[in-house]
């Protein structure tokens, strides 16, 4: 059973307050981050409300009503209620209890409205922030991957330029950017293929590329399974369209830094 299924199983107990201390604290933490469990919890509580219907009993004694109203009269007036100051005659006509009930409803609605406005405002500011981030990231990525960017490889003076490849790999996202320079050209029916060499298992195809007139090429974010640990990358020459398994010989290879 996955961890999440475990939580889902315990949700009914949590709704009933029947989950013991430690488990309850863990569930509470989980609920803070899991919207689907929160939704299910609401449904379970709705189901509980249905169960209460099977309780049919006598009505509360009359004295309870007065007892409640007396207790409320003792409560300190909250600022919200005090700020609504109608004229004396209006109080007299409606009676203060009805007015108070109306105010309670109004407060509930007002709270809802404020909460919604806040949610909207924060969603808008998050969107603006995301747009700014995107713009910043585009600026960083552009000179690396745009086709008309100039690629210059620097080597020690008096050294002829060698074929060179650099792979930038982010394991947890399965993101890969690969840049190559000074690659020898290939006949039309052939292509280079990049391989991710996992610490365990067979090489994983990571994109095909053909060098341009300058010998440069790039591969950006080919589909890769996320979370694969790479011990290195390699390049082979394959038929146009690539292959699922590398064809010997390996023409270039590198291990991680």
């Amino acid at each position, binding site marked *: 059973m996955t961890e999440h299924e475990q939580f889902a199983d315990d949700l009914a*107990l949590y709704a009933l307050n*029947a989950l013991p201390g430690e488990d309850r604290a863990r569930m509470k933490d989980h609920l803070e981050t899991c919207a689907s469990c929160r939704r299910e919890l609401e449904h379970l*509580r709705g189901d*509980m409300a249905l169960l209460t*219907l099977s309780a049919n009993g006598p009505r509360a004694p009359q004295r309870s009503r007065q007892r*409640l109203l007396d207790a*409320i009269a003792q409560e300190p007036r909250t600022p919200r209620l005090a700020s609504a100051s109608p004229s004396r005659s209006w109080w007299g006509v409606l009676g203060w209890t*009805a007015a108070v*009930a109306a105010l*309670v409803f109004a407060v509930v609605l007002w709270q809802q409205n404020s909460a919604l406005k806040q949610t909207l405002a924060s969603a808008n500011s998050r969107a603006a922030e995301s747009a700014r981030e995107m713009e910043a990231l585009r600026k960083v990525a552009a000179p690396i991957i745009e086709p008309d960017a100039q690629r210059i490889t620097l080597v020690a003076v008096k050294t002829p330029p060698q074929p060179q490849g650099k792979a930038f790999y982010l394991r947890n996202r399965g993101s890969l950017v690969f840049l190559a320079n000074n690659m020898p050209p290939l006949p039309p029916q052939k292509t280079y293929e990049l391989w991710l060499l996992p610490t365990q298992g067979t090489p994983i195809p990571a994109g095909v590329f053909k060098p341009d007139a300058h010998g440069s090429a790039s591969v950006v974010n080919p589909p890769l399974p996320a979370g694969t640990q790479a011990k290195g990358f390699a390049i082979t020459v394959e038929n146009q369209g690539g292959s699922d398994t590398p064809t010997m010989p390996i023409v270039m290879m590198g291990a991680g830094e």
Partner: protein
Amino acid sequence: MAELYDRYSSVVYAVALRVLGDTGAAEDVLQEVFLQLWRKPSAFDAARGSLGNWLAVIARNRAIDSLRKRRPETDIDDVVVSASCDMASDADRARAAEKVRGVMGNMAPAQRSALEMAYWEGLTHSEIADKTGEPLGTIKTRIRAGLIALRKAFQV
């Protein structure tokens, strides 16, 4: 508040009385639940459910806390109850009650009793397991399935 009381006090009182079996204690829960609502009207989320359902769940939880002599375990702010049916009018309640009784009647006895023990007596699943001699996992599944059976009966 008097209006809310007139509309919903019977739900709250009936639940409290069923749990506690004592009119005095039930009245105390009734008082406490409505006073809480008075003090914190924002605890109830009007967009997410009906007040009657919310009060029913709060009332049951408070009554169980009182029965088991423990401090309230959930803050009323945290409780959101999705609306399965509205319990505003006596007629609605009577119709829904009929349906619930039907579902409970059709439920397997072991499932019904596990659900009732958890709901009305506030027993934890390990207490129910001890009482019935059934494994913990079975009790958990029964309770969850019982609640979902009720939900299905009310889904359109």
